[in-house]
């Protein structure tokens, strides 16, 4: 709790500001402890204690202070942490609210903020002009990589990236509304009141902790007869109470995308002393809005003059906010340098609060009459037609140098702060992001919304509406409702300038900063033009103006004006760089939301997963699925387990989880005709109760998928696909069915997850399952290889396939998924008693390779035809049409010398080839070698007692019996080309 009020800072002004000293908190900055009031930003709290030196610039490491009081802040970027894992670099001191215990550090300095070795760059700055690195560091060639680049990289960057995983939660919410209003200043609040009154669903968004917008800095405006800021809070309370309105504060509309879609980032708990565990840190709102009202106001610009970057120099509106909202004076003797009337009001407020105003230096000959009169009344010295041409001070400004425009007589005036204003830039960011077209307002030197591309409207400052009454009318109209509201300003503002000020013109070499964070000066922009950069995009990229983390909110217009002057072209002809999202930087965490850990990507598990895990399975990722890879027993490594599994399957039997295979039910009187069109095979000849291996090509004739298809009835097929192929095959089928063959009476339903599939393979397979199967004779005679039937297994309806992907006698038991575990358990109990094993995908791969069976995606790669892989027999010669029929006949698909799938055996049986190894005829040829193909599958085959492999080899089938070579990194392996069947060449076992 708070101590005496003076602990809240020597620069707190008693009676000023809207914060109450009832609640305070402590934080440290670079190790030193400070006290803040609730509602303080880090910036206001530090300024209250007279701390102006807050950061170092990017390139020259110049000392910098707080420039603004909002998200446009380019200088005061800090590292803020709650604890070691909750550390956030590059935080704007002007946005971050102080929370108790905050640990805050300055960035980009070493060893300390006050004494930074990197500041030597400032002395070297004549050498480091814009784009200098394009011209240097080229000799010697290697030095760029080894010396120059590492030095540049170390010097660059601002904050230090977090090194620990962020423990905070982030949330996401989709939302819809009739009207979204971006900005809750006078215009936004008025529009919201108006829209809400019509019954529309309204979302009102503002980036600050409380509504009010520019009223934060204001002390004199009245609305509805009330103090402006108080009126705003009342309006917000009224809106919040309405069921059709959602008010989101601390929330930034960061992106305006297509078709009324907006991205909002809400800072939910960064300001809390101790956020609850379940409270997200930030929340992403993805809003689809019927209409958008943009009420984002405008941003004050700084003046561009020599050494305009010293700590203590800040925007006039910022000084006013610190005074009127936070109760903090930015100095004791403040200078004002302006081209706009608004800065006068800051001076008036400061003066009334007891701060000395050294002088108002106004570069205009004729400021507004009203403000001049008020200045006289308050006894403030106004120097019209004068400019500040330089400043003094090292870590903080201590003087300003003032000269009559066009005159060399200068005088130095002592100040401890200098507030500046070059006028206001409408915030057209969201309008531009919505792809609206801007026009240039020559008189006021600003870009304004012109042609709208989406259903949106700009109101208020961001539309260039300066008059309060007009602004209120405009907002009421935009909201679509009726409202009576009267607002009064103390002064009407005039003035404004863009470009370099007096003493920073083309004939000078002073450092007059345009873009503070990136240290881009007026002369850098002129250099870019001199070097032929005539488009503003080139100038931006050459100088990096506007590319810092504030994205040019302060610098773009000045840069444009300086370039235009140098090019002697009107500003619109030079262009305006695109306003890209996000409006202000957004954490990755916010954008990621819940998609982390288990929710990053769904993990799909089969009904038998837990039983397999309990049996010791190792799993592999296949698409989203976890598939049992192998089942090591105690002391076994993968090789030993797979060898045992493969041997056991052929000697006894094995049980395998095939549930992940895609399944599609194809139903209807035209089902066979449909499959005829989608597969290369013929299906009308397949009798109910039988199944057949099918190959699917796309129109281009390359293998797309494969699988066994069972015909359950005349009008019902049970189609299987590869595990990874299931969704795309169904989509492919639907595409043809709906758009090419809509006349066919057939429907498709995904049944992948309806069925748990237990494959039982091996000589004892029948014996294992027989007692569990009811209502079906599964003898070899009654139920031969490639049969399918509906039956009952353990009392539940099942589909039984007699099929094999191992070359052994085999069955695949399909039962409704929820029964999978029980049936698996029962089968396994029987199998285990008979000496069978569980096996996983690795053994499945080996066993099928021993038989030369294809795995689509491993032995094919999207460039392989059925004939290439030795499956030409699966392409019907009789059909007059199927998808792929024409593609298959293209010249390159029928030429000689295509890569064909063959077997390879190594001369040394123990050599297991590397999958992906490349094959050559002559291993001694120079590089680049002519490669004939590559090894697609390679395994140690325990059943063959040697290694086996499959490969795609150019003209492979004609090379059978010949020796080819596989040059590996350390040795060359000789291989003989064979056919693809390595085990049970006669194929008798499958019919056992």
């Amino acid at each position, binding site marked *: 709790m708070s101590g005496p009020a003076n602990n809240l800072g020597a620069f707190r002004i008693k009676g000023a500001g809207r914060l109450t000293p009832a609640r305070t908190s402590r934080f440290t900055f670079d190790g030193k402890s400070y006290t803040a009031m609730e509602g303080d930003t880090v910036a206001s709290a530090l300024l209250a204690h007279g701390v102006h030196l807050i950061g170092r610039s990017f390139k020259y490491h110049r000392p910098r202070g707080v420039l603004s009081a909002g998200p446009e802040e380019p200088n005061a970027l800090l590292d803020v942490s709650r604890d070691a894992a909750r550390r956030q670099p590059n935080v704007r001191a002007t946005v971050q609210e102080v929370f108790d215990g905050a640990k805050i550090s300055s960035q980009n300095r070493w060893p300390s903020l006050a004494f930074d070795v990197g500041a030597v760059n400032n002395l070297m700055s004549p050498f480091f002009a814009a784009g200098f690195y394009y011209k240097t560091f*080229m000799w010697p060639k290697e030095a760029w990589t080894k010396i120059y680049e590492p030095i540049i990289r170390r010097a660059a960057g601002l904050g230090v990236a977090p090194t620990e995983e962020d423990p905070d939660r982030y949330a996401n919410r989709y939302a819809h509304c009739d009207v979204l209003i971006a900005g809750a200043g006078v215009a936004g609040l008025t529009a919201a009141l108006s829209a809400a009154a019509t019954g529309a669903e309204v979302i009102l968004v503002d980036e600050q902790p409380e509504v009010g917008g520019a009223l934060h800095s204001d002390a004199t405006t009245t609305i509805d007869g009330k103090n402006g800021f108080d009126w705003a809070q009342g309006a917000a309370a009224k809106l919040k109470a309405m069921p059709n309105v959602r008010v989101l504060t601390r929330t930034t509309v960061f992106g305006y995308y297509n078709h009324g879609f907006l991205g909002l980032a809400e800072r939910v708990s960064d300001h809390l002393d101790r956020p609850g565990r379940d409270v997200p840190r930030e929340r992403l709102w993805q809003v689809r809005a019927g209409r958008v009202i943009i009420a984002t106001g405008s941003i004050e610009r700084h003046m561009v003059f020599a050494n305009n970057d010293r700590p203590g120099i800040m925007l006039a509106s910022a000084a006013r906010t610190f005074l009127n909202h936070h109760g903090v004076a930015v100095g004791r003797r403040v200078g004002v340098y302006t081209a706009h009337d608004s800065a006068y009001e800051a001076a008036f407020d400061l003066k009334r609060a007891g701060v000395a105003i050294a002088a108002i230096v106004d570069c205009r000959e004729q400021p507004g009459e009203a403000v001049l009169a008020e200045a006289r009344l308050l006894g403030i010295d106004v120097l019209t037609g004068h400019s500040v041409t330089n400043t003094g001070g090292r870590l903080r400004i201590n003087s300003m140098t003032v000269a009559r425009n066009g005159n060399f007589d200068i005088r130095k005036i002592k100040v401890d702060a200098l507030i500046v204003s070059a006028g206001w830039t409408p915030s057209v960011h969201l309008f531009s992001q919505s792809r609206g077209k801007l026009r240039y307002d020559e008189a006021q030197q600003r870009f304004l919304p012109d042609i709208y591309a989406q259903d949106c409207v700009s109101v208020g400052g961001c539309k260039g509406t300066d008059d309060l009454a007009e602004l209120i009318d405009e907002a009421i109209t935009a909201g679509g409702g009726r409202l009576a509201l009267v607002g009064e300003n103390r002064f009407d503002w005039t003035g404004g300038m863009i470009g370099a000020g007096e003493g920073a013109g083309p004939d000078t070499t002073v450092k007059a900063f345009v873009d503070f964070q990136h240290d881009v000066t007026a002369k850098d922009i002129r250099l870019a033009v001199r070097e*032929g950069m005539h488009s503003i995009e*080139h100038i931006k990229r050459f100088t990096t103006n506007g590319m810092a983390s504030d994205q040019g909110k302060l610098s773009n217009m000045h840069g444009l004006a300086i370039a235009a002057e140098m090019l002697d072209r009107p500003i619109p002809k030079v262009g305006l760089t695109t306003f890209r999202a996000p409006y202000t930087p957004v954490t990755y965490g916010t954008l990621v939301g819940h998609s982390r850990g288990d929710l990053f990507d769904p993990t799909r598990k089969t009904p038998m997963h837990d039983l397999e895990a309990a049996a010791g399975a190792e799993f592999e990722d296949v698409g989203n699925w976890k598939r049992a890879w192998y089942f090591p027993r105690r002391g076994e490594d993968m090789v030993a387990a797979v060898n045992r599994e493969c041997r056991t399957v052929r000697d006894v039997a094995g049980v395998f989880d095939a549930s992940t295979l895609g399944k599609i039910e194809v139903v209807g009187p035209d089902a066979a005709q449909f499959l005829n069109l989608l597969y290369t095979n013929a299906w009308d000849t397949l009798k109910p109760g039988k199944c057949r291996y099918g190959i699917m090509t796309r129109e281009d004739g390359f293998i797309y998928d494969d699988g066994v298809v069972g015909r359950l009835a005349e009008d019902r097929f049970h189609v299987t696909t590869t595990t990874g192929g299931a969704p795309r095959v169904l989509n492919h089928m639907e595409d043809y069915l709906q758009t090419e063959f809509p006349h066919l009476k057939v429907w498709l339903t995904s049944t992948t997850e309806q069925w748990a599939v237990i494959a039982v393979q091996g000589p004892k397979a029948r014996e294992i399952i027989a007692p569990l199967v009811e209502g079906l004779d599964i003898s070899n005679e009654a139920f031969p290889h490639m049969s399918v039937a509906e039956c009952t297994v353990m009392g539940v309806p099942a589909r039984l396939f007699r099929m094999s992907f191992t070359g052994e006698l085999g069955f695949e038991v399909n039962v409704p998924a929820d029964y999978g575990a029980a049936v698996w358990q029962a089968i396994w109990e029987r199998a285990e008693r008979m000496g069978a094993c569980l096996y996983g995908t690795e053994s499945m791969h080996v066993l099928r390779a021993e038989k030369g069976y294809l795995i689509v995606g491993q032995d094919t790669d*999207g460039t392989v035809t059925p004939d290439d892989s030795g499956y030409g027999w699966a392409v019907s010669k009789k059909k007059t049409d199927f998808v792929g029929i024409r593609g298959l006949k293209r010249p390159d698909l029928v030429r000689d010398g295509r890569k064909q799938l063959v077997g390879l055996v190594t001369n040394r049986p123990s050599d297991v080839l590397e999958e992906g190894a490349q094959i050559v005829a002559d291993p001694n040829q120079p590089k680049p070698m002519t490669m004939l193909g590559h090894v697609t599958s390679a395994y140690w085959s325990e059943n063959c007692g040697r290694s086996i492999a499959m490969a795609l080899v150019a003209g492979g089938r004609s090379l059978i019996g010949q020796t080819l070579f596989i040059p590996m990194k350390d040795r060359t392996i000789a291989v003989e080309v064979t056919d693809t069947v390595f085990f049970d060449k006669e194929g008798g076992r499958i019919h056992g």
Partner: protein
Amino acid sequence: MRKYSVFAVAREALRGHKGWEAQWTSPEPRSSYDVIIVGGGGHGLGAAYYLAKEHGITNVAVIEKGWLGGGNTGRNTTIIRSNYLYEESMDIYEHSLKLWEGLSQDLNYNTMYSPRGVMMLSHNVHDQQSFKRHINANRLYGIDNEWLTPEQAKAFVPVLDIAKTARYPINGAALQRRGGTARHDAVAWGYARAASDRGVHIIQNCEVTGIRRGPGGEVQGVETSRGFIGAKKVGVSAAGHSSVVMEMAGVRVPLHSNPLQALVSEPLKPIFPCVVMSNTVHAYISQSDKGELVIGAGTDQYNSYSQTGGLQIITHTLDAICELFPMFRRVKMMRQWGGITDNTPDRSPIQGVTPVPGLFVNCGWGTGGFKATPGSANLFAHLIAKGEPHRLAAGLNLDRFRTGRLIDEAAAAAVAH
């Protein structure tokens, strides 16, 4: 052309950098040229440079509707590598990589080619098979690419999470050490400066609106927003707008133009030493010399010329990045943008003659055009100068879509970046 060097910079530093001349001139277009290149990106500017330098053809104009390098050259994530699978791809990307290695010196312009290594993460058996296929093919072709264990990968990129408990654990990686990044704008500017110095006319802010053909169907020149400009030969290198320009000559090309997005973070002190890509989780990331994390996002699914894409593409990309590098959740996205990529059915480029005499095309670089810049430009110049493709680019012809002899890197590897 005034030579760039540390001495020149030092001299200029003493006089306020007032002595620098324009890097390229902006002349009025002549009434005709020997060669017009449509498109002032890296590929087009480079082709003009090599036409002048290697083929002695200097009466050349590069016509750009916007500003130099304002298309994909200035919008990409600057990744350079050559570890492709098929010989046609290895030929051109390796040719390109070799040119990258000497480009700064050749152009007297520091393009900041930084061979910091490109690492592709393998997450499963399928990835491993695919990567080894690449590695073996690359090795026999004389291109560096090596397999790393997870531990070796972590040693190379200390922020990598190689925990086996990750949703998609890392089971290894392929590393091309010569791969890396370069400074994209510098490539366009360096080529423009060097080409301009050799007499090439660089005409910005001039849009081609038609391609004029003679009685025999041959190219006669281009209609532009600044009037007709004659040319004996026209080379189209217009990236996402290739379909539009080719259509002016009545030539259809098998392209889809899709938005491709990218984003950068706020600048950070060095934390990420190389380029890391993962196809399984769809992410690629590096850190620029300025300190920004540069992240390539995915392609939007639909055809568009709008240079904008959906937020969902960005969020999905960041999901993946933060899954691989969980410490980056508190890093902030500072800027996102989109470009228009021109994608062919086999995800390999098209460079070759067209049915129109005198008209040459270079397009379809999809998401991989930046790395190809010097190689593509160099071989495109050869094609235009000689009227037939260089050996290294012969397979990239348009005819492959008739014959079916595709170069399907995507099908073979699902590596599309």
